[in-house]
C-alpha cells in the first residue's frame, strides 16, 4: 500500500546525493520564518508524549526516556493543495502525466515534512467539491493522501484551484505551510484576491505543472482535450506557422502575467514539466523562498 511513496522515496535517493538531501532538509526546515527548528533541549518523557518524539540515542545513554522538546512544541502543518480535476488526466509540456507529476511533487514535499516530524494534510478537489484530509505525520498517512489524488483520475469535473484556496480561507485558522500544485489554468482577479488573503495568514509556495505545448505536438499524435474527449484537436491547424506564432506569444503573455502576479504577492513559484526535474525544481523553490522573502 505504500507503492506511491516508495517510488517517490526511491526517486529522491537516486537523484539526490547526500549533500543535496541535507540541503533539501535544511531548505525545508527554514521555510517557516521565525520558527527555528534547531534543537532546543531534551526533557524527561511524560506518558502521553508521542513515541516518535523520543530521542532514542539520548535515551540509550540515559536511564529514562528523553523527548526532543522542540518537536513536541513546534509541530508544523504542511497543507498540500492539489487540483485533482480531470485537467490533470492530461500530459505536461514534456509529455509526462500531469497527475503522476502532481503526486510526485506532493509526495516529495510531504515526505520532507513527514521526515521532519511535521503533519501533512491534503486539500484536493475540483470546481465542484473540495476534500480535506485529517492532519497526520506518518508515511502511511502520506501514502493514503497520494492515493486519494490518484483515485480522482477519470473524474468528469473541471478544475478550479480557487475553490480549494477558498475552502482553506473559510475553514482553517491556524498557520500552515501551503504548497499549491496547480496547472496553467489562468489566474484571474478572483484568484488573486483569494491568494492575497491566504498569503497574509500562511506561508505559500506555488508549483505550476505546465500544460502541453499545443503548437508543438507530434504530428502522429491524436490530441484531444480532456474536457471534450469526443472532439479531436487538429494538429495540422495548430502547427500552422502563423497559428503557432500567435500561440507562443499568447502563452508567453499568460506566463508573464502569472509570474508577475505571484511575485507581486510574494509567493515563490516553480514550473515543473518532467519528473526528472521534480527534485531540482523543488529544491530551487525552497531555496528561493528562503532567500527571497526573509
Amino acid at each position: 500500500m505504500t507503492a506511491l511513496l516508495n517510488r517517490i522515496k526511491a526517486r529522491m535517493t537516486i537523484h539526490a546525493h547526500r549533500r543535496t538531501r541535507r540541503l533539501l532538509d535544511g531548505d525545508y526546515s527554514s521555510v517557516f520564518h521565525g520558527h527555528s527548528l534547531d534543537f532546543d533541549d531534551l526533557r524527561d518523557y511524560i506518558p502521553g508524549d508521542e513515541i516518535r518524539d523520543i530521542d532514542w540515542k539520548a535515551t540509550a545513554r540515559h536511564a529514562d526516556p528523553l523527548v526532543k522538546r522542540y518537536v513536541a512544541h513546534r509541530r508544523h502543518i504542511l497543507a498540500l493543495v492539489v487540483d485533482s480535476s480531470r485537467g490533470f488526466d492530461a500530459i505536461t509540456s514534456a509529455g509526462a502525466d500531469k497527475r503522476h507529476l502532481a503526486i510526485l511533487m506532493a509526495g516529495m514535499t510531504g515526505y520532507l515534512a513527514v521526515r521532519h516530524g511535521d503533519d501533512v494534510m491534503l486539500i484536493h478537489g475540483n470546481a465542484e467539491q473540495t476534500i480535506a484530509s485529517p492532519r497526520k505525520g506518518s508515511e502511511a498517512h502520506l501514502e493514503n493522501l497520494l492515493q486519494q489524488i490518484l483515485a480522482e483520475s477519470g473524474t468528469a469535473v473541471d478544475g478550479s484551484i480557487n475553490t480549494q484556496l477558498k475552502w482553506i480561507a473559510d475553514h482553517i485558522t491556524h498557520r500552515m505551510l501551503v504548497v499549491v500544485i496547480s496547472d496553467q489554468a489562468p489566474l484571474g482577479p478572483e484568484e488573486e484576491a483569494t491568494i492575497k488573503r491566504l498569503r497574509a495568514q500562511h506561508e505559500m509556495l506555488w508549483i505550476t505543472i505546465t500544460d502541453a505545448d499545443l503548437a508543438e505536438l507530434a504530428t502522429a499524435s491524436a490530441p484531444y482535450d480532456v474536457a471534450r474527449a469526443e472532439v479531436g484537436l487538429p494538429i495540422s491547424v495548430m502547427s500552422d506557422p502563423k497559428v503557432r506564432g500567435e500561440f507562443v506569444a499568447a502563452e508567453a503573455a499568460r506566463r508573464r502575467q502569472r509570474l508577475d502576479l505571484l511575485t507581486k504577492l510574494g509567493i515563490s513559484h516553480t514550473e515543473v514539466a518532467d519528473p526528472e526535474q521534480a527534485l531540482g525544481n523543488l529544491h530551487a523553490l525552497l531555496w528561493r523562498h528562503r532567500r527571497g522573502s526573509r
Partner: protein
Amino acid sequence: MVLMLWWLALGLLVLAGIAVFVFRRPRRTESSLAVAHSGRMTQLPGFRRAMRRKFLTTAAFLGVIAITGLGALAGVARPAWVETVNPEKKLRDVMLCLDVSGSMLGYDADLLAAYQQLVDRFDGERIGMTVFNATAVSAFPLTDDYDMVQNYLEEAEQGFRTWGSEGTDYSWSTSPPNIGGSSLIGDGLVSCIDNFDRKDEDRSRSVVFATDNMLAGEPLFELDEATNIAIDAGVRVYSLSPPSILATTQTQELRSVSDRTGGEQFEMGSATTIDRIVSEIQSQEAENTPGRSYTIVHDMPAVPLAIAVFGLIGVFVLAWRVRS
C-alpha cells in the same frame, strides 16, 4: 433515361459507405494525447481563422470527392436511352410478283413504276420481287433495304422501257428455250409463294400478283392448284391486272384467286389503285400481325464519366494543395 446497372452502382455505394465507416479516423486510440486547457489554443483568433479555412478546404475536398464518386457510380450504372421499337410492320412480307410474258411487256414498265410508288409507301415491311414467264426468276429476295429495292425496280423499269438494251432484261432469263410455253401463271404464283422465307415464323405474307392471266403452254400447276397452295401457305394474293374493257374469264379467275386467298383484285391504271393496294395490305396486316416489341439501348456514358474524370483531376489538385 434509365440506369441499366443501377444495382451495381447501389452495391458499390453500399461498399463505399462500409469502407468509409470502417476506415474512418478513430475517435481515440492508445496513441491519443490528452491535453488540458485547449482553450489556450482554440480561443486564438488566428486558430479560428485557420480552422475556418481548413473547414472550407475540407468541405470543398469532400464535395469534389462526392461529385467524383457519384459521377463514377453514375457511369458504372450504365446510363442509357432505351428505345422501344414497335416491330409490327417488320413482320410483314410483300412479294411483288410480275408477269413478264409477251402479252404483258407493254404494261410492265408502268407496273414497275407503280411498284416504285408502292415501295415508297411501305415502311418496315420486307419486299421481294419475283418475275416469271415460262420460268420464274427471283429479282431480289425479301428485304427491307428500300434503297436497293428502288435501284432494282428502276433498273428493271429501264430494262422494259428500252426493250432490254439498258437496265435489267428479265424477258430473256425467264423464257429459256428448253421450256416450252410462256406465261405459265400458276407456276409463277407458286414460285412467288415459294420465295417467302422464314416459313416457321408467324408472319403476314402477301403477293402483289401482276398478270393478265393469258396462259400459253402447259403449266405444272393450274391457277386453281396454285391458289390452294397459297391458301395453305397463308398467303394473300392481291392481283393487279391490266385494264380491259371486257370482263374476261381471265379477270374473273384472278378475282376468284384473290377472293379465295383473302386478297383483292385491282385494275391497273386507275389513279387510286396504289393507294388502295397499300391501305388494303396495311389494314389487313395490322389486324393480323401480333405486336412483339423489342428495345434498343443507346449508352450515354459521356456526361457522368466526364464529371468523374474532371472530379478526379480536382481531387488531385486539392490533395496537392492540402499537402503543400
